[in-house]
């Protein structure tokens, strides 16, 4: 596939199919997770709680992968080539996107910690479903609003969308990018369903 030739990025623009898709997948999985959290609060079925938890877990995995791949991409595009990326860290670490994404992930880590700290099943399900809604609400300012208000090296600072902007992304890349988003998301959903099935069986053996 041909890609646009950009000065600062050169071939690394192909990371769009991987790094950006990780974050898309994470957002979709977190959205599904909050939907199941709301469903649990309406129906009080423990299966919905398991769904909600597993979607959040796999969402975190994709978020961490997105962060790791972003760190690699960053050290060869933003960092000064004549210094080690460690020395450019001071400037790079001030990125509002990095801080926002880190806060969002930490909030979801706290969701997992909260889950494992409550031993009563129904109480845990109810409290964490409410916390899940709160965590999802915090995703909006931390990864969508604040990074867009502040200047940044990352694309999509101050003037709009990082990857969906029609002026920003080349149409040739969109041909690969959208199927890639769908593909990675389906992979995430598949892993999640495996985990859900495992936990539903575990639940059954516990209740017997």
């Amino acid at each position, binding site marked *: 596939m041909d890609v646009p030739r950009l000065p600062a990025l*050169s*071939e*690394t623009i*192909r*990371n769009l199919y*991987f*790094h950006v898709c*990780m974050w898309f997948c994470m957002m979709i999985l977190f959205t599904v997770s909050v939907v199941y959290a709301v469903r649990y609060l309406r129906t009080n079925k423990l299966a919905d709680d398991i769904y909600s938890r597993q979607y959040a877990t796999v969402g975190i*995995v994709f978020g*961490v*992968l997105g962060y*790791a*791949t972003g760190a*690699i*991409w960053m050290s*060869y*595009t933003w960092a000064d*080539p*004549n210094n*080690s990326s460690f020395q450019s860290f001071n400037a790079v670490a001030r990125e509002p996107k990095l801080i926002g994404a880190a806060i969002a992930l930490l909030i979801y880590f706290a969701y997992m910690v909260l889950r494992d700290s409550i031993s009563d099943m129904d109480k845990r399900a109810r409290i964490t479903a409410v916390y899940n809604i709160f965590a999802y609400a915090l995703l909006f300012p931390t990864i969508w609003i604040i990074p867009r208000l502040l200047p940044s090296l990352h694309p999509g600072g101050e003037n709009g969308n990082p990857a969906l902007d029609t002026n920003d992304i080349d149409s040739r890349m969109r041909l690969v990018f959208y199927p890639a988003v769908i593909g990675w998301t389906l*992979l995430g959903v598949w*892993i999640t369903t*495996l*985990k859900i099935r*495992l936990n539903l*069986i*575990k639940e059954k*053996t516990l209740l017997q």
Partner: protein
Amino acid sequence: MRMIKTLSLFFTALFSTALLYAQDEEKVDMADTMRSNGRIYVVVAVVVVILIGLILYLVRLDRKISRMEREKESK
């Protein structure tokens, strides 16, 4: 005579390669492999990280499932 010719040729060849090496050293471009070929290896590194991450995660899941199977058999 022939011996001298071959020897001189040999030495010129040797020194020309040495000169080439010296020229290479003058260029300052750090992290060479990662920055070669339009930094395509950055993309490779990213793909490898994702694959390793997902595979490790799936291996952990696999272990959990086999542990459950063993527990079920022992019951």
